[in-house]
């Protein structure tokens, strides 16, 4: 149950508040019902993301997809660090399972292969 809740972004404290007691104090039936409820929410969350899963391990998966969509919609400036140490800044204009296209501040668009990326974060130290 805690694992399911964590996947939904619900911490232990929030879960306890919602169910009214620590998970360990639930009866077997209550635990089963809450598990069912959390599993249902998890399925609903997944079903809001309609896409074809990428085939290779570096592909954009569910959580990263949600994060990229959020940043794209917000027009957030991101800084990407690649394997060779190069960095690129830009706003996300689109992505596929294996590539992310950004528009750099000067207007140029560049497509980065996911496999070449080590990490990315908001530019300018913004959390």
């Amino acid at each position, binding site marked *: 149950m805690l694992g399911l809740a964590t996947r939904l972004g619900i911490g232990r404290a929030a879960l306890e508040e919602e169910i009214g007691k620590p998970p360990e104090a639930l009866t077997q039936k209550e635990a089963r019902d809450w598990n069912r409820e959390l599993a249902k929410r998890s399925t609903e969350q997944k079903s809001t993301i309609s896409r074809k899963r990428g085939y290779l*391990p570096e592909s*954009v998966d569910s959580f990263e997809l949600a*994060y990229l969509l959020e940043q794209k919609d917000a027009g957030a400036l991101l800084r990407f660090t690649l*394997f060779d140490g190069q960095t690129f800044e830009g706003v996300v204009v689109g992505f596929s399972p294996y590539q992310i296209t950004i528009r750099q501040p000067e207007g140029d668009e560049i497509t980065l292969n*996911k496999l070449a990326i080590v990490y990315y974060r*908001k530019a300018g130290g913004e*959390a």
Partner: protein
Amino acid sequence: MSLGDELRYLRAFHGGGNLMEIEDEIGLDPGTLRMMEQRYCRVGEDDEELAKIAAYYGASLEKLQWHRERYRKALSAYLQEAMESEDAAGFELRTGEWMKGRVTWWDLGAFGLEPEGGGPFTVVQRHAVVDWEGVGA
């Protein structure tokens, strides 16, 4: 970094050859390398096969065995444990950097990290993680 990710990295630096052709050249059963590169579970148990692959790429057998212990599912387990415990998790990246922080989510391709001591939220690509704390612990 998993054996699969390391093998893909080595293949890229050897001209990104075709898997079937490499398998044929090395003398491996068809599909052996493809399976090693893509699976999430521990792979490469046959040291004789691994030695052939190491020789082809000019790598050491020990290096490939080291990566064999860092299979993708082991990283998943570490990420999940770190996320549930909310303890800081540490990762060595291909760039040589060590990154430490709280894991907020993970999926099959990446994970979200709130760096220890502040700093911007960071999305780390799993294939760029060379090592992490507590491997084999």
